């Protein structure tokens, strides 16, 4: 059977090209997603300023909530803020045998100030001693003394600064003047953030975190193995919550924010990969199905002369599998390239830390190949079942009669799909709310699409029957013929309709999901934003005395520092957004509805929580803050929670001391009654005129900034939708070209019976429009089943929000693609003399 299958395939390369293309791109997409998944799981970040170290010691950057089931392994959550080490650790490590050098490192944002404005806010400040961990070498000048700095060459070059110059540097909200004592050459490993090196005492003062270091970099003595040294250091620090990293883990130690970015990467890769597999299965099943229909007489002949149904099924499976092996093997190269490309785009959009190194080992390759083969197996089985049912008598007859399309398997999967889709929709509406509802939406699209794909021939028949009169009315003779053709070959039509349904359904659902979600979040944001003017830091945070000065400005009704972080209610595994506010201005600048207590008490160890948490004013509770510290708190206020957007309010000074920067990033200001916000803004501008690094913005500017932030998420989504759309578009074209090219003989016959070429092409156009219309209708149905429950959950409205033109564009692209992919092969098929085409092979 293998030899017959191989010979057939060599003979009918064209028929298998479509399957090959679908599998090739599908496997490449799955491999790329596998690579992204591996990248996300590993989160390999190359160390930069710690490139020369052998071992890096940091605080434990994870929080392991107590497992709900004692049998379970504790799952650890990454902490959002830098967990610092006690400076005494440096001394302990220096005492470990085999340590050649151990240096504590601190980092803090530094802004370069010129003419009262921050012109470069990218650099980080460090002590000169930590420069040896990279190592930076002095290219010019000398190492910094007190009041002096060494700039790295990138920064010095970009700002035209030379040794001996005086520079104004902003750190922790205050500006100081330093003399440039030298220019440092960064090693090749350093590609990112520019560095400013201070003398040790200056660095400690500016970082303002006495007695603690961010990390300790360790260089091993010659001949000492890094792994062994790490073990010895671990032994010396036993009992302390530290993480000891070697190799590539040093990068994660240097950039603790990287793992959080990659969690999103894992989810993204999962979603695209899942869609790709699903689309691939249906498209491959469709192309294999078409190729079987196209040679059904051949299969019938095989049956007549003694091929058992089993042998026939095996032959079809062998064919599918052989194509799959070729396609997946060839897909390896583009798979890797595509994965790297997607990661670059994601990093460019800011969705993933740019430092994360793309990683594609053998595992994603194996998985991608396996998925490709499995896809072809599933699709091949679907096609083979149909092939096996070929009746031998069909070899004797010319009539290509349609057979029953709804087998028990199709029915079973359709019923399962509808049940699952309905269940998901109900769950979305009833259980979830707010942004979390999006997590059930992706699966809902997939499940509905599968269910509809299963009964696509039937739906095509029904929708086609509804549209046919229109076609006939509008299209004249060509419409009449197109109508008859569509009626006679619903099952073949369905093969083309399915990928169109997929692409329209997925695109519409994913895009409007995004716009609806963004609208809901923007609305929640503006609802909660009661400030008229906001002071925001451009570099490293606002000075702590600023809020009092702001309060003294005439026209200010209230001002509150605003700090954001993430933490956990102790014992919970689900993280919750934390907001730090000042007790004096919180009532005026936050929009929450209090149900008990007062925000004026939000000082010291006070906390305000949603009433839904089930605690009362005066109760004690513990909250684990962003740096992993668990603090005992006293409930001073309760408020009505915003469903889907949970948060906990803490005193700003408490929360800010547990953040990486240690300073508030914003101050919210409320204008007094009758005070013009514009005038207030001007007054605050004047107040902060001598404070570089403070920006004064109004409500609109704030909302605009928030929307820009949301757009990062949206762009990522659009990138994904784009990829899936590309893939389904390839499939649409693929299937249509295959289906149309096969009709060369039929079109030739039609011309022999008197149709002009124009009439034939007109008929094909109308057929294509019918196919597109059915596909678009069904796709819209798929997206509706997802969007309506989601909108109900997220915005309490039946309709998703978002511009209508996007839907128009999706519909337009789908139509143009369908018509083009039908007309082009039809044009080729009707070239030359009709008699030749009519006499040609079927």
């Amino acid at each position, binding site marked *: 059977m293998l030899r017959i299958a191989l010979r057939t395939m060599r003979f009918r390369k064209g028929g298998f090209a479509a399957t090959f293309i679908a599998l090739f791109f599908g496997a490449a997409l799955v491999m790329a997603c596998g690579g992204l998944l591996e990248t996300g799981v590993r989160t390999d970040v190359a160390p930069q300023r710690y490139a020369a170290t052998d071992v890096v010691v940091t605080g434990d950057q994870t929080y392991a909530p107590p497992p709900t089931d004692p049998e379970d392994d504790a799952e650890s959550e990454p902490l959002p803020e830098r967990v610092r080490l006690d400076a005494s650790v440096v001394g302990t490590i220096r005492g470990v045998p085999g340590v050649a050098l151990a240096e504590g490192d601190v980092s803090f944002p530094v802004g370069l100030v010129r003419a009262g404005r921050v012109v470069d806010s990218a650099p980080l400040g460090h002590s000169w001693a930590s420069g040896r961990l990279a190592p930076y070498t002095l290219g010019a000048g000398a190492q910094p003394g007190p009041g002096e700095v060494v700039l790295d060459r990138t920064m010095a070059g970009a700002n035209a600064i030379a040794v001996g110059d005086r520079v104004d540097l902003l750190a922790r909200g205050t500006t100081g003047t330093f003399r440039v004592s030298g220019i440092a050459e960064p090693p090749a490993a350093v590609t990112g953030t520019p560095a400013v090196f201070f003398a040790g005492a200056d660095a400690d003062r500016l970082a303002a975190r006495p007695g603690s270091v961010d990390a300790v970099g360790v260089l091993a003595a010659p001949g000492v193995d890094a792994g062994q040294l790490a073990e010895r250091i671990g032994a010396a620090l036993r009992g302390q919550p530290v993480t000891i990293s070697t190799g590539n883990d040093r990068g994660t130690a240097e950039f603790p924010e990287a793992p959080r970015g990659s969690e999103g990467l894992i989810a993204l890769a999962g979603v695209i990969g899942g869609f790709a597999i699903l689309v691939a299965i249906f498209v491959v099943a469709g192309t294999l199905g078409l190729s079987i229909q196209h040679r059904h007489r051949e299969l019938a002949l095989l049956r007549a002369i*003694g091929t058992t149904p089993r042998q026939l099924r095996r032959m079809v499976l062998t064919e599918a599998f052989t194509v799959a092996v070729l396609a997946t093997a060839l897909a390896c190269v583009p798979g890797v390239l595509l994965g790297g490309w997607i990661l670059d785009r994601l990093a460019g959009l800011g969705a993933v830390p740019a430092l994360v190194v793309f990683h594609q080992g053998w595992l994603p390759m194996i998985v991608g190949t396996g998925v490709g083969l499995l896809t072809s197996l599933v699709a091949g089985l679907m096609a083979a079942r149909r092939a096996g049912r070929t009746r031998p008598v069909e070899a004797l007859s010319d009539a290509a009669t349609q057979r029953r399309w709804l087998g028990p398997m199709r029915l079973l999967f359709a019923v399962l799909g509808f049940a699952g889709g309905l269940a998901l929709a109900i769950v979305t509406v009833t259980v979830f709310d707010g942004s979390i509802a999006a997590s059930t939406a992706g699966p809902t699209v997939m499940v509905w699409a599968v269910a509809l794909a299963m009964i696509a021939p039937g739906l095509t028949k029904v929708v086609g029957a509804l549209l046919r009169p229109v076609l006939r009315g509008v299209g004249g003779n060509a419409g009449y013929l197109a109508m008859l053709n569509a009626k006679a070959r619903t099952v073949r039509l369905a093969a083309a309709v399915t990928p169109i349904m997929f692409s329209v359904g997925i695109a519409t659902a994913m895009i409007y999901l995004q716009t609806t979600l963004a609208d809901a979040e923007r609305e929640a944001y503006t609802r909660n934003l009661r400030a008229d003017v906001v002071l925001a830091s451009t570099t490293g945070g606002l000075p702590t005395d600023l809020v009092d000065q702001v309060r003294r400005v005439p026209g200010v009704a209230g001002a509150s520092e605003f700090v954001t972080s993430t933490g956990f209610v102790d014992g919970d595994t689900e993280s919750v957004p934390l907001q730090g506010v000042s007790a004096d201005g919180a009532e005026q600048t936050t929009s929450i509805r209090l149900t008990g207590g007062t925000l004026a008490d939000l000082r010291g160890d006070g906390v305000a929580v949603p009433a839904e948490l089930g605690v009362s004013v005066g109760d004690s509770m513990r909250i684990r803050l962003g740096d992993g510290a668990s603090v005992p708190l006293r409930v001073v206020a309760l408020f009505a929670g915003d469903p889907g957007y949970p948060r906990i309010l803490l005193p700003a000074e408490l929360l800010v001391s547990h953040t990486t920067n240690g300073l508030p990033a914003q101050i919210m200001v409320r204008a007094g009654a009758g005070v013009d916000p514009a005038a207030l803004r001007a007054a605050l501008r004047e107040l902060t005129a001598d404070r570089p690094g403070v920006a004064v913005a109004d409500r609109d500017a704030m909302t605009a900034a928030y929307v820009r932030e949301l757009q990062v998420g949206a762009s990522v989504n659009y990138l994904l939708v784009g990829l899936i759309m590309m893939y389904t578009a390839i499939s649409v074209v693929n299937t249509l070209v295959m289906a149309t090219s096969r009709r060369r003989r039929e079109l030739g016959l039609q011309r022999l019976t008197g149709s002009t070429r124009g009439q034939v092409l007109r008929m094909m156009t109308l057929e294509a429009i019918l196919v597109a219309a059915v596909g678009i209708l069904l796709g819209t149905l798929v997206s509706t089943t997802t969007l309506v429950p989601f909108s109900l959950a997220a915005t309490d409205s039946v309709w998703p929000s978002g511009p209508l033109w996007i839907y128009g564009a999706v519909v337009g692209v789908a139509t143009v693609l369908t018509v083009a992919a039908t007309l082009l092969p039809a044009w080729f098929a009707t070239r030359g003399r009709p008699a030749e085409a009519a006499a040609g092979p079927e």
Partner: protein
Amino acid sequence: MQTEDVVRLESVHKTYGDKRHRVEALRGVTIGLPRGSFTAVMGPSGSGKSTFLHCAAGLDRPTSGSVRLAERELTGLGETALTKLRRERVGFVFQSFNLLPALTVQQNITLPLRLAGKRADRALVADVISRVGLADRRKHLPAELSGGQQQRVAIARALVTRPAVIFADEPTGALDTRTARDVLDLLRSAVRVHGQTVVMVTHDPVAASYADRVVFLADGQLVGELRNPAPDAVAERMTHLGAWADHTPVRALGA
């Protein structure tokens, strides 16, 4: 020897379609086809010729009645068992689309053997190929052959398994008179020289005259037969059966 029936149909009925569109294609056909005989089945369009062939060859199942083929009762056999029986005991020659376009002449001929998992007997294959006169075309693809040559390949494929019976459905329908004669000669010599049994459905009196016996079907029933027929006699009999002028083969349901 002459009296032993290779194929025996016993009051075979075949009905197509659902309750509203009921077509009775065969209504109680009883006939035996002796070993080493060459039988032509004739009848006007819609008389049930093709259905008769399908039922006798195990391609289709009768609604009622019994079919015995090479001492096996076909009624009640599953699809796979029927297929295996066809593969081992039956050869087929169709009007058109007889060959797999991807396989060479030789591969097409040995296909039934390969499907049965048997090794092709080289001498036998070579003999069969030379008997149909295609020794120099063994490596050719069907598309490179004329219609008559393709039909000869089909006959070779039918012969190679040494089947109990060969069924031919309008084997000359798509051929010109001269090539048709070659093909019919081949079938006749298979019967005369090699003792093969052949059943041929045709509407051509000249083709039918190559057979030892012609049976006539009308409205799903056997209505007579001729032994050692001459073309004129066959044509004469067909005229009486009516509808002779309309000899376009209608192959929709119930043909």
